[in-house]
C-alpha cells in the first residue's frame, strides 16, 4: 500500500476557522490535515522513463515521487497569510512568449487569459516569457517566468513597433508566441507574422499542447492544428493562470536596438491623435456604462445631472422617447438600440420584454424601481425597491460629498 490513509477528523480540524464560538469550516482550503502529499502523475511518469532512448520506454517497476515545484502549493493554511512563495523556473526547456496589449502598463483580463494559455502550452518544462512595450506591472502573478520589457514606441508607429517586437522574438527564439485577439494585439500579431514570414493561427478558442482550435467559415466549422509559432487567443476562451506567482525574471536580449524601418518612405503617417470617447455623445450601442430613465421619473433635469456625474451615457425607455421627453436615439430596447454595455443602470424602468431585449447583452444591471415585482428588479444584480425620484438627489449629494472630501 503506497497510498497513505486519510484522517478525516484531522482534515476537518485543519480547516476550522479559528476564534469563533460556533464551529465554522473553510471548505475552500486545501485538505492538508492528513499530510497526504499530492501526486503528480505526469512527473511520476517522466520519472519512470528510461533515459537515453529515442523511442520512449518506461520502467513501470519504479515509483518515483516528485516533491517538485507544484507541490509547494500544498502548504498548510497558516502559511497562506505570509506572502505566497514565488515559483522559480531556473532552466526552462523552451519558452512560450506572450505579447500583451497591456493598456496603460497594466495587464487586461484578456492579457491574463493569454498568459494562462501560454502557461498551458509551456507545461512543466517550458517557461512563459512576456514581452511588453514599456513597463508593465503584475506580470509575475499572472504567470510569467520571464519578462522582457522593450522600449515603448513613441506615437503611433506600427511599423517600428512591429520591427522591434519581431527582432526581440527572433532573439528570444521562443517556441510559441501568443497574442491576444484584440484590436491592437490582433493587428500586431498579423504584422509580425508577415514580417517574419510565418503563418499565424488566429482567434484560437482552445489552446492546448496537442492542438489549437479556431472557428472558421462563418462558425460553421472549427479548424485544429498543432501549435505553430504564432497564434492569437480569442477573448474569454481560456482561463487565466490560477497558480502561485511566478518569478518574471527580467531578460535582456542582444541586438535589441530596433532595426531601422524597412519602409522606403517612412514618414507616411503624418499625424495621429487619440480622440477619447465622450460618454455624453458616444453612440448608445458602443457605450460602456448607460444610465437610463423610465416612466418612473418625472424630473429629467436631475436625471441628466446624475448621468453627467456618473460619466455615463444617457438612455431612456420607449415611453419617454414617445412622449418627446428624451431624444429618440436614446431609446433602449428591441425597437431602439440594443446595448453592449458593461453596466446598465435603470432608473424607474419596470422592464417591458422589448426593453429587456435591449439590455440582454449587459453584464451588470442596477435597477431602482418602486415595484418589487418589476421584471427589471428581477434582472438586476443590485435591485433597489425605492422611488428613483428620491434616490437620484441622494446619489448627487453623495457624489458631491465625495468630491468635496477629496478636493
Amino acid at each position, binding site marked *: 500500500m503506497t497510498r497513505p490513509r486519510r484522517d478525516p477528523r484531522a482534515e476537518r480540524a485543519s480547516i476550522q476557522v479559528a476564534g469563533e464560538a460556533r464551529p465554522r469550516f473553510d471548505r475552500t482550503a486545501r485538505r492538508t490535515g492528513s499530510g497526504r502529499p499530492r501526486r503528480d502523475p505526469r512527473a511520476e511518469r517522466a520519472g519512470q522513463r528510461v533515459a537515453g532512448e529515442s523511442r520512449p520506454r518506461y520502467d513501470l517497476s519504479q515509483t518515483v515521487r516528485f516533491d517538485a515545484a507544484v507541490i509547494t502549493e500544498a502548504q498548510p493554511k497558516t502559511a497562506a497569510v505570509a506572502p505566497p512563495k514565488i515559483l522559480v523556473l531556473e532552466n526552462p526547456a523552451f519558452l512560450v512568449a506572450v505579447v500583451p496589449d497591456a493598456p496603460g502598463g497594466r495587464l487586461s483580463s484578456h492579457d491574463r487569459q493569454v498568459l494562462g494559455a501560454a502557461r498551458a502550452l509551456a507545461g512543466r518544462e517550458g517557461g512563459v516569457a512576456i514581452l511588453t512595450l514599456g513597463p508593465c506591472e503584475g506580470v509575475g502573478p499572472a504567470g510569467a517566468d520571464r519578462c522582457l520589457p522593450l522600449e515603448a514606441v513613441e506615437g503611433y508607429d506600427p511599423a517600428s513597433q512591429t520591427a522591434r517586437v519581431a527582432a526581440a522574438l527572433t532573439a528570444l527564439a521562443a517556441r510559441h508566441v501568443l497574442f491576444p485577439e484584440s484590436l491592437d494585439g490582433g493587428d500586431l500579431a498579423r504584422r509580425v507574422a508577415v514580417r517574419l514570414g510565418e503563418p499565424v493561427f488566429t482567434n484560437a478558442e482552445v489552446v492546448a499542447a496537442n492542438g489549437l482550435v479556431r472557428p472558421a467559415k462563418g462558425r460553421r466549422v472549427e479548424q485544429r492544428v498543432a501549435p505553430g509559432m504564432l497564434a492569437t487567443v480569442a477573448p474569454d476562451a481560456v482561463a487565466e493562470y490560477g497558480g502561485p506567482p511566478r518569478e518574471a525574471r527580467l531578460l535582456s536580449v542582444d541586438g535589441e536596438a530596433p532595426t531601422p524601418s524597412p519602409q522606403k518612405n517612412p514618414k507616411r503617417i503624418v499625424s495621429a491623435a487619440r480622440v477619447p470617447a465622450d460618454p455624453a455623445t458616444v453612440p448608445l450601442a458602443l457605450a460602456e456604462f448607460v444610465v437610463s430613465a423610465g*416612466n418612473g421619473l418625472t424630473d429629467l433635469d436631475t436625471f441628466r445631472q446624475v448621468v453627467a456625474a456618473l460619466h455615463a451615457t444617457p438612455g431612456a425607455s*420607449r*415611453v419617454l422617447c*414617445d412622449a418627446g421627453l428624451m431624444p*429618440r436615439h436614446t431609446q433602449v430596447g428591441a*425597437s431602439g438600440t440594443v446595448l453592449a454595455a458593461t453596466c446598465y443602470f435603470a432608473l424607474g424602468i419596470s422592464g*417591458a*420584454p*422589448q426593453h429587456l431585449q435591449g439590455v440582454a447583452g449587459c453584464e451588470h444591471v442596477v435597477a431602482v424601481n418602486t415595484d418589487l415585482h418589476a421584471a427589471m428588479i428581477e434582472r438586476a444584480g443590485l435591485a433597489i425597491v425605492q422611488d428613483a425620484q428620491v434616490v437620484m438627489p441622494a446619489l448627487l449629494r453623495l457624489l458631491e460629498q465625495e468630491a468635496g472630501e477629496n478636493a
Partner: protein
Amino acid sequence: MTSLMPLTTVFPGLVWLMAALALVQGLRRAALWRVGAAAPVAWLDGLAKLPKRYLVDVHHVVARDAYASRMHAVVAGGLLAASILTALAILPPIAGFRPYWFVVALAFGVTAVGSLLVGARRYPSKQKRLSAGRFQILPFLLVAYAVGGTATALLLAFGIGGVFAPLALALAAAGGLGLAFEVRHGPMRHAAAGALHLVAHPRPGRFEGRPDTALQPLDLDAPRLGSEMPADFTWNRLLSYDACVSCGRCEIACPAFAAGQPLNPKRLIQDLVAGLSPAEPAYAGNPYPGGRQAQGERGALAGLIGPDARIHPDTLWSCTTCRACVEECPMMIEHVDAVVSLRRHQTLERGALPDKAVGPVTELRQSGDPGGRPLSARTDFAAGVDLPVMAERGGAEILLWLGEGAYDLRYGRSLRALIRLLREAGVDFAVLGAEERDTGDLARRLGDEATFQALARENIATLAKYRFERIVTADPHALHALRNEYPAMGGRYTLAHHTAFLLELIRAGKLNPARLPDLSVTYHDPCYLARYNGETEAPRAVLDAIGVSRSEMARSGKRAMCCGGGGGAPVSDIPGERRIPDIRMAQAAETGAGIVAVACPSCTAMLEGVTGRHAEIRDIAELLLQAVEAGR
C-alpha cells in the same frame, strides 16, 4: 317677340359652348396623361359597366356621409339633367315648346338647391377636411349657373323678354363657362376624370364584389423599376389621381395622419396631380403633419421623392398600407398602389430604404427571416408540444403556416393555444418547420419586390413537395400573401384564416366551447383580414359562439383603424406626435371592454406594446381555448 327667338338658340348654344370648353379643357389635361406608361384597359366592358359602378359602388362609399350623398345627388343630378335638357333645345321644335322650359327651369331649380347645400359646407366656415382654394369658388359658380339658368328658363317658359333676359343669360353664362373652365384644374375635373377613371379603373375586380387587393407583380427585367416621376405611372393611374375631389375622407381615416406622422393621403394624391403639371394651382387642404412646405420641381420627368422634392421620403415610409384611405375614397383611387410603386423605385433603384428598415430587409433577403433568426428556431415556441412536421409526414389535411409571429414570445402563447385547439378537434395538420420561410410580405410592402419574388419562389417550391388540402394561418399578412399574391407567382392554394377555420370546427361540433358571459370583449379587425380579404364575420361568430359580451368600437369591420403594425411601418419607425397603437387602444377603451380580441401577430405585438392600458390583449384562439377548457 323677335328678341326671344335668339334666346332659345343662344341659351342652348351656351350649354354647347360650355360642353365645348369643358372638352377643350379636359383634353388639355388629358394630354398630360399620355406621358404615362401604357396599360391594358377593357374599354367596352368598362363603358358598359360605368352606370353600375357609379350608382352602386361609388354610391356605397359616398352614402357613408348622408349629407354629402344627398348634396351630390341633387347638385350633380340637377346639373346634368338641366344641362342636357337645355342642350337638346337647340332643336327648334323643342325650343318652341314652352312647357319644356318649365321642366328645364325645374331642373335648374333643383341644381340651385344643391348649390346651396354645397355652399353650406363651406360658408360661413369650411368643414375641416375639405380643401379651400378653387373649391371655395365652386358654390358661387354653381349658384350663378343654376339661378341664371332657372331665370332664363322661366323667362322662356313665360315668354317674357326685355332687359331681364340678357341679365339672366349673362349670369348663367358666367357660372356655366366658369364651371366648364374648371374642368382642367378646378373642382369640376373630378367629374370628367372620375367618370373616365371608373371606365378605365386599374383594378376592375373591385367592382365585381371580390377584394381585388393583391399588389401587382413587378417585372424585374423592366428597364426602370417602380415610379420615380409622374411619367413612370401608367396613364390610367395618372387619370385616377386627377379624379381626386379633395374631399378629405382619406385623411380622416389615415392612421399615420392621426398619429401626426408626415403623411396625408389627400396631399399625397394632390402632389402626384400637381407633380404632373407646373400649371396646377396651389394645394389648399390640410398639409402633411410636421409642417413641411417644400414644393420641388414639377413636370412629367421631375423626381417626386426626395428631401427637397414634393414628397419627402418620410411621407412615403409612414404608410402602414392599411388601405383605410382606399376604403374611404369615393373616387375609388388606389393610394396604397401609388405608395408601393414609389417605394419600389426608392428601394430597388436607389437603395433608399429608411435606415432602420435596412437591417430587417437585408436579413430577409439573406436568411429568409427579418430577424436573421435560424429558420429551425421557428418551432421553438412549441417546445414540449407535439408538432408534426411536413418533412416527416409527407402530407396532412391542413398545413399550418406559422409566420413570423412564431418567433415572438408573446405570440407563441397564441399559437400554442391554436395548436391545442387543433389537437382537441382531432385535425390532421402539420407545419413546414425549418422549411418555412417568410412570405416576403414585409419586403414587398417596403418595395423590395426582388426579395419578395425570391422568397415566394422558394416557398412555392417547398409547398409543391407536400400534399395538403388547405393552408391555415393565424397571420393575416401571410394569408394575404399566400392567398392573393402567390397566384401571380404560380402558387395557388386554398387558404383559411384560423378564425374562419375554428368557426368551421365549432359548427361541425368538433369543438364544444362553454359560454363565458363574464368576459367583455371588443374585437379589433386586422387590416389584412378585414379590408384586404373582406373577412369580418368569422372572428365575431367565434366570439358569439363562446357567448362573451361583445361590443364594437366606433371604427370596426372594413372601416376599422389600423394598429400601426403593417406595411413595414414598425421597422421604418417614422417619428410622429403620437403612436398609432395608443390611439387604437384609446378607441378600444371607449367601449369599456376588459379584453381586446385580436387575430393577427402584428396587432398583438403593437397593442401589447401600449403602456398604461387596462384592457388585456387576447387572440381569438386563446379565448376559444379558455372556453373549450371551461366546457370540459
